């Protein structure tokens, strides 16, 4: 007469349900449906949905794209490493790459404008983590992910790497400006 013994009736599946169980199953199932429909609902009415637009690429091809993007829109350089700061026009395709152990280049965007942000990694997997906004996206080598972003607050942001990428992982942090 317990869970470590066989059921007391041979035909146990005909035993009627207790009301506490039956009602709970109905409530729980209704809640599960609400949670399920929230996701498609947000795709229609919400403003924060991760794009699935992706292209296969290589480190070489993507690196070239980022370089040419950086040359066209450079406004200044920062830090001892002379990292270019890029101020692209609104609506433009903007490119960012992750490699051991930095994000490159530094982007300078404008509030309320929309950009197509391209992300890819040159070597290992990296994690794009925009702080303090807290938007987190996985970045894979060989895949060029295009995310449409609309910054809604001015400020100096940081892009932290939050996917382990070797011994210098914790030094992989970069800036992003929103004017």
């Amino acid at each position, binding site marked *: 007469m317990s869970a470590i013994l066989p059921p007391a009736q041979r035909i146990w599946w005909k035993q009627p349900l207790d009301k506490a169980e039956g009602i709970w199953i109905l409530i729980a199932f209704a809640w599960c*449906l609400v949670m399920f429909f929230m996701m498609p609902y947000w*795709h229609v009415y*919400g403003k924060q949905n991760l*794009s699935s637009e992706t292209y296969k690429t290589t480190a070489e091809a993507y690196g070239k794209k980022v370089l040419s993007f950086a040359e066209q829109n450079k406004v200044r350089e920062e830090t001892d490493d002379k990292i270019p700061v890029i101020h692209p026009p609104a609506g433009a395709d903007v490119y960012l790459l992750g490699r051991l152990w930095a994000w490159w280049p530094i982007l300078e965007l404008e509030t309320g404008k929309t950009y197509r942000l391209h992300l890819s990694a040159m070597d*290992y997997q990296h994690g794009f983590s925009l*702080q303090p906004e807290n938007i987190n*996206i996985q970045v894979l080598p060989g895949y060029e992910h295009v995310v449409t972003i609309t910054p809604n607050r001015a400020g100096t942001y940081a892009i932290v790497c939050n996917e382990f990428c070797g*011994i210098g992982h914790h030094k992989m942090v970069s800036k992003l400006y929103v004017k």
Partner: protein
Amino acid sequence: MANAALFRTCPRSGLQFHRSAETLIKLNAVAAVVCLLVGGILALLILLTRWQAIHLVNAENFYMYLTVHGLDMLAFWIIFFEMAILYFCSSTLLKSRLATPGWAWAGFALMVIGVVLVNAIVFMGEATVMFTSYVPLPGHPVFYLGLILFAVGALIGCFVFLGTLVVAKAEKTYEGSIPLVTFGALTACIIAVFTIASGAIILIPTFLWSVGYIKTIDPLMYRTIWWAFGHSSQQINVSAHVAVWYAIAAIVFGAKPMSERVSRTAFLLYILFLQLASAHHLLSDPGLSTEWKVFNTSYAMYLAVLASMVHGLTVPGSIEVAQRAKGYTKGLFEWIRKAPWGNPVFSGMFISLIGFGFLGGISGVMMGTEQLNMLIHNTIYVPGHFHATVVIGTTLAFMALTYFLIPTLFNREMINPGLAKWQPYLFGLGMAVFVTAMMGAGTLGVPRRHWDITFAGAAQAYEFPGTAWLMLGIMGVAGVFAVLGGVLYIYITVGSLLWGKRLDTGAYSTQRSVLRMPAMVMTGHGTAGFAAPGTFVFAMVFLTAFVLYYFVNWKYLSTVWGLS
């Protein structure tokens, strides 16, 4: 042949142990505790490093320790213990001989070799690749080989379990259907077979890649298949520890399932839908369609979440029914107030249940929601969540079961019962605060697997808010309490095995009894009454917390940058 098998009946519990099964259960349990010990020492070092104010070990060692900690705890401790549970639930509960003990020994040997190889190669600094070993981060071939050997060993164990069910059925060692707990173990076993097959599909090519035979492994393919192994293995834990909850409710209270049909259907839902949850590791990945993410992450409309919510009601519900039958009927909650809170078998199980549901379950569904995942992906929120499921849920449930096994399986009197009484509270509540603080820090953006959130020496800097530091401090203090709880567990179990008073084992003989169906004595219950009102109130409290937390996160999401 069957008659040559030796059985003994434990004079305290009435359980009948087959000698081969008994030895293997003991060995697997001991191997599990050894892994827990190594993983636990590393846990302390990792904790004292992420507690930024202390920052104990250097970066190289930190990442190395984190890799070993993940594997020793999440894979080795738990799967060794699950092997013990599988043999216990088949051979012991069904009063059957263990099928092919030779194969079971071979499986155990392979698992031990795998564990030794993996630990050795990572400690040599050759495979600091984390638990996930995402390609193309390179690990030494021995690392993948060790994992494969361990997995093959575990697979053999699964087939020994299935074989034992066949033997029991053929030799008619039980009447009627298998007990619910064995049914739960069978669920765990079926999920394990799927899990290990997925592991083989990805780890074998990764091994070949590491020796240079295959040129590249696609990182997205790796992630997709690896998580069918990595996440599904956590679903083995869920099925196993839910089975342990039912077992402990039965052992401590003589509780019977409120309805066999409901509980077994819930287990069936696990088999059908739980593995889809692997997808929620890929929600912030490129290259996968939105539809694929939404369908899979919802476990096909949250049917597996439904199953967990059902177990969350039926386990305490069955305890309530059993307690009410004993006369604890005053008000809604006398049954739980008068429960044996000083018995670590019960208190461990109940804290495991509450912690798994409130902390692990709710946070898991939140982070497993397609859009919400972006808020916490790869932050320290993620380990916060799975320490709630795997440490408070699985590990604490297994600890509670150990306290029952010491006198019955190992035939020793438990040393320091006074300390044992406090162990589940120290460990469970310490972990509860620890995981809550981690989730708090993760919500503030603190990354996981990160040695230094001050970014000292980096070309550019970022300063996390003061609250994040506070959270890491709370995590550190609570974590130390939890580690102390872990130390107590190991001291009590190992100490009892070494110095505990020997108890009467019951003689081995070829005599054996058959597992009879219990007589029908309970009437009025399970016949459309409302047998567990107190539990129902708890369930409504749980639902309220769930709904509030879920929508708070949508509110938070609605304030971040527009993304499309």
